């Protein structure tokens, strides 16, 4: 009877989780859907506490209390700008839980574990432990505890491949010989090293792919946990998590014009060999805040293109205030969001929503690109490579083929930029030398404040 009740809560939880994810297809249904998913989680926890194998509740109570104590600040106080590292560290916790359950299971049953179960268990701890250290490294890079630039050494790919081969060898051996305790723990140790060496060569701008990929690994590890301990709700959630991470990493790769292999083994950010056309002989037109404000004040339609530079400068609020001023004067303002505008999928949307910008105005690339041609002004704030027309026209450019926002098609462009330093990819941007483009140099937030003062004075 108890067992039936437990299973019923698991079924209810699975359904509520899937409905919760489905609610995310629309922003106005999303919040309620996720709250229902949280109820599903609560049901599953209560159902589990009825499990007949549980005889001692002291450690459980302690663990739940400590986890809540640590989890609460991670949910409530982390600023939205820190979302990428917050998500990276939670992949670490997720993978850690899966790995620890796997180790506990192996420690208890060891040599008696049959082959198929050992396969699931091995997969679980293998992917789990490499996700633990990999996510921690990603967290460190995003939090800037360690250098964000790719760290490479000669023979790195061969080294990583060798490690992976050895780990896979251990895994295969364990399926045939579940009693080989030393091999099991050696495999964990190697997987922990793989996690580190996998993320070391990956640079800051590639982090959206890595974070998504680690999401997928964490999901697969918990799915494998489900196989190992015979729990369907774990299998389902792991599949949902793994699938979502995988889909997002493919989307991110497409948005950056890179292949998976290229992200994982390419170490982007190292000097670009075939540098595109250089800027010699071209002149840049610089504009004063007064003139730029005048241009914006009398524009009928403005498309704002926020980049990571805007987020770094914490200028979201100033952007919204500027947009309010333009709208007050009868202009229409929209926002063009490139898929990799932030440091993780969809990050820029969250930052702008936090600044109270209604989501209808946040347009994704496919939606907004046809609209540039009819825009009076495109206001580019701290974005560079994602608005570089070389991606469309210059075959020799390293970003050729990358989907970009068609800012160059707008009637005029104002670019807020700190200096003429090239962007992350180290490529010159023709847009800045275009006759229609005016550059407003300075810190994004400072320039926006100046623009605001000017536009208010008009």
């Amino acid at each position: 009877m108890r067992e039936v009740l437990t299973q019923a809560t698991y079924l209810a939880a699975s359904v509520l989780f899937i409905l919760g994810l489905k609610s995310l297809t629309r922003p106005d249904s999303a919040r309620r859907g996720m709250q229902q998913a949280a109820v599903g989680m609560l049901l599953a926890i209560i159902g589990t506490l009825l499990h007949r194998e549980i005889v001692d509740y002291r450690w459980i109570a302690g663990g739940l209390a400590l986890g809540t104590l640590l989890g609460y600040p991670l949910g409530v106080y982390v600023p939205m700008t820190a979302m990428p590292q917050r998500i990276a560290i939670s992949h670490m916790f997720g993978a850690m839980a899966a790995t620890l359950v796997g180790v506990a299971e192996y420690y208890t049953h060891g040599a008696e574990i049959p082959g198929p179960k050992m396969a699931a268990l091995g997969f679980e701890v293998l992917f789990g432990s490499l996700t633990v250290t990999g996510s921690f490294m990603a967290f460190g890079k995003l939090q800037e505890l360690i250098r964000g630039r790719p760290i490479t050494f000669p023979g790195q790919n061969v080294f990583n491949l060798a490690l992976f081969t050895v780990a896979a060898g251990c895994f295969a051996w364990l399926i045939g010989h579940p009693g080989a305790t030393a091999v099991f723990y050696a495999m964990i140790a190697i997987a922990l090293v793989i996690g580190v060496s996998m993320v070391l060569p990956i640079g800051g701008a590639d982090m959206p792919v890595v974070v998504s990929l680690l999401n997928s690994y964490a999901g697969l590890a918990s799915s494998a946990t489900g196989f190992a301990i015979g729990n369907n709700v774990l299998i389902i959630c792991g599949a949902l998590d793994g699938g979502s991470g995988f889909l997002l990493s493919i989307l991110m790769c497409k948005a950056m014009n890179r292949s998976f292999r290229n992200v994982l083994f390419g170490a982007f950010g190292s000097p670009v060999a075939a540098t595109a056309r250089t800027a010699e002989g071209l002149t840049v037109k610089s504009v004063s805040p007064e003139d730029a404000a005048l241009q914006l004040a009398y524009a009928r339609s403005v498309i704002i293109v926020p980049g990571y530079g805007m987020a770094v400068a914490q200028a979201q609020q100033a952007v919204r205030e500027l947009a309010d001023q333009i709208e007050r004067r009868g202009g229409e303002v929209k926002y063009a969001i490139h898929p990799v505008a932030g440091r993780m999928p969809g990050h820029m949307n969250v930052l702008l929503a936090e600044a109270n910008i209604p989501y209808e105005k946040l347009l994704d690339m496919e939606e907004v690109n046809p609209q540039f041609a009819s825009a009076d002004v495109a206001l580019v704030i701290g974005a560079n490579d994602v608005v570089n027309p070389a991606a469309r026209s210059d075959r020799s450019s390293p970003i050729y083929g990358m989907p970009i926002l068609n800012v160059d098609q707008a009637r005029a462009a104002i670019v807020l930029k700190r200096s003429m330093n090239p962007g992350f990819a180290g490529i010159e941007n023709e847009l800045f030398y275009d006759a229609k483009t005016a550059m407003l140099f300075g810190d994004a937030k400072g320039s926006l404040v100046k623009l605001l003062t000017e536009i208010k004075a008009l």
Partner: protein
Amino acid sequence: MTLTSVVQLYVFVLACFVGYLVITRVPPLLHTPLMSATNAISGISLVGSLVAAGANLSRTATILGFAAVVSATINVVGGFLITDRMLKMFRHAEPSAASSPAPGDRKREG
């Protein structure tokens, strides 16, 4: 291969299909909340951790289970809270919204 593992495989494959169909329809607008939501949901490994922590099989297994319960609970509590915090920021345009920020969710950094 036992019957159980075949059934498990069924469940896994079908869940992958459902996941694919649902997740591909999530707009890029909500990709960050999607990621934190799947994170919160993956905290379901808590159910495995609870059994490991409470089955009293051995000291080591209990401590491993305890650590797993802590990790998974962090994801459940933190994950659902932060997802909710994000989702409540996504709001409709109001007819005369221009200057009045919605109550209760002011920016922290000032």
